[in-house]
């Protein structure tokens, strides 16, 4: 058991970091929406799913194969732009259709939660029964099957002793970190970012100070959606396959990462994503892959027992905001 852990330490670490980067990007959407609206946006996972299909569509449209090096980075960036646009637009639409009417009527948070679940199921079925058969020309039943498109080559680019890093892992990690830094700067340095922070801190005072809440909420959804879109492009780079159901498990993991880091806390979501990714990998190298989620969630509970507000805590975000 411990031998396995030691022998598989480096590959586990690298896989954990690249998986964690995707969790973290996705967790940002959950945590930002929670910060502003105190709402868990369950349909976020399905916005991500829409992004994976956008990335697939882009690659198929380009008709490329066996990409490597700079060309691969370029195509992934393009996928990120397309998927980000689709997911960002989708998230904005989702907010207008599923949440805003409830918010305007002062409905309870539970009502919004039900709306979120409904939107999630709606988006999945829309893809499975209409969009996938229509866009990818599969039969009607084929809409629920995975769609794959092989477009890149996986090669080892860095090799130091037992550490072997592939081009794919490298792009995922640095692509995600780049987006995280950009988001952090956006929230902390720009006027819109200040609006988001003030709304998260105290919505009523924010309104009194002239912050347009509707606009802030919209921006929050779009930014979260764009992050999900980039995560989708990176996910597609790694797995080259997607299906209508793909957001489900990843969404749960990303939500977990957000809670682990401290829900509502942007930097917490990043930490949570990486910690969860690494915990899963180390846990399964020691106990076997069937224990992967058990180990990760047991540790999650332990962490929350001692730090009920997550690793970085909700309060940090309030203080910084």
């Amino acid at each position, binding site marked *: 058991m411990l031998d*396995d852990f030691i*022998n*598989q330490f480096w*590959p*586990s670490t690298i*896989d954990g970091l690249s*998986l964690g980067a995707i969790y973290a990007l996705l967790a940002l959407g959950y945590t930002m929406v929670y910060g502003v609206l105190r709402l*868990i946006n*369950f349909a976020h996972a399905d916005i991500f799913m829409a992004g994976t299909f956008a990335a697939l569509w882009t690659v198929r449209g380009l008709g490329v194969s066996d990409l490597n090096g700079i060309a691969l980075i370029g195509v992934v960036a393009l996928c990120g732009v397309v998927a980000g646009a689709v997911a960002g637009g989708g998230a904005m639409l989702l907010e207008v259709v599923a949440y805003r009417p409830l918010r305007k009527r002062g409905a309870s948070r539970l009502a919004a939660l039900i709306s979120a*679940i409904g939107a*999630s199921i709606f988006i999945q079925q829309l893809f499975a029964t209409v969009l996938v058969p229509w866009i990818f020309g599969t039969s009607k*039943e084929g809409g*629920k*099957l*995975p769609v*794959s498109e*092989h477009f890149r080559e*996986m090669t*080892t680019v860095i090799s130091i002793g037992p550490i072997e890093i*592939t081009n794919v892992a490298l792009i995922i990690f640095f692509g995600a970190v780049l987006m995280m830094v950009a988001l952090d700067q956006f929230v902390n340095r720009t006027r819109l970012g200040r609006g988001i922070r003030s709304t998260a801190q105290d919505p009523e005072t924010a309104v009194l100070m002239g912050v347009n809440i509707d606009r802030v909420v919209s921006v929050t959804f779009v930014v979260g959606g764009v992050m999900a879109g980039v995560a989708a492009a990176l996910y597609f780079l*790694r*797995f*080259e*396959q997607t299906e209508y*159901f*793909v957001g*489900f*498990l990843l969404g*749960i993991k990303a*939500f977990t990462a957000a809670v682990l880091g401290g829900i509502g806390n942007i930097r917490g979501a990043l930490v949570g994503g990486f910690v969860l990714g690494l915990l*899963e*990998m180390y846990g*399964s*190298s020691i106990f*076997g*892959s*069937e224990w*992967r*989620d058990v180990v990760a969630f047991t540790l999650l509970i332990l962490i929350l027992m001692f730090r009920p507000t997550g690793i970085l805590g909700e309060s940090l975000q309030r203080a910084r905001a």
Partner: protein
Amino acid sequence: MERLGTLRRNMMRVAGAVAMSAVLALGAVACGDDGGGSGDGDSITIGFMGDLTGENSGLVIPPKQGAELAIEQYNATNPEVKINLKTYDSQGKPEQATTLALGAVKNDKIVGLIGPAFSGESQSVGPILEEAKIPSVSPSATSITLAEKGWKYWHRVVADDAVQSTGAATFLSGSAGAKKVFTVHDNQDYGKGLADAIGAAVKAKGVTTQTDAVDDNATDYSSTVNKIMDFKPDAVYFGGYYAVAGRLFKQLAEAGYEGKMMSGDGSLAKELITGTGQENAQGALLSCGCLIDTAGETNANAKKFADDYKAKFGSEVAIYSTEGYDAATAFIEAVKAGNTKPEEINEFLKTVSFDGVGKPIKFDQNGELAAQDIFIYEVQGNVIKLLGNANEAKVS
């Protein structure tokens, strides 16, 4: 969150169970007792039951077409007693199959049933046919437990999962020359059963083994891949279905694994190649109790069958189409010999012996096929090619 998770998970479980039962059930045959002709005395009705429109229909439509072809060819000879084939779409669901079976016995007066295709539905339809004394022959149900029920009217024309694991183990440790085997499964009854049985069988031949499981809802199998790379096996055997097999084999190949990759009948579909990626899938091996022999390498009948099948349906023979044809032929032989009552047909099936388009068809006392053949397939280009019987197949 919890609730939603549980709900979806349940949906997945149901889907998985259906898929599994589809594969397992492909082989059961029902024996009927009375019912006889449907009116005018010179025609009788035989049923075909399985998932014809559900999500695993890809495994059931080929045997249905095989059966259709056999009966069409028989009726074209202007026999004294013609056979009608009536299809029952159970969608692989045991409860639906039960209702359909009752209707088939009472209203349609079937004299025999080809199917049910999946093991799960076979479990619930078996007792009904037993009571009604209607013989059945399944083309594809491979669950071991079906033959242990003591049913007198049940048969199948495919070897069960125990035979498959022995065959695959013989092949792996024999001609594939594996000294270290890593088994992976999807934690479901079918996949785990198969992978564990193969692990035990190769171990008995002196092979070192290790095992791991993957979550069929997840897409990232890197922890399993890391374990495999650490163990450095000569072969990896995956028990489960093609969607997961495709993802696993892809991630394995991309991590630089160079040994053999092998799976069972649940992965024997072209989607395995698309999921893995054609380049990575080259040389992947599959074991199955079914025979898919488009070139007629195993016997002369197979070639003619493959050609006729292609002419009629416009597609190559696929998984279990050969078994569907042979199951129908067993009934046709009975009718040819002048048996038109379910009880007579069941008596005849006890002694039936002919060369099918796949295997020699002859049943043991418990309804199990006497010939216990397992065939090995290999991915070559974009097709899954037959290598031969597990005892003699050579890795190319």
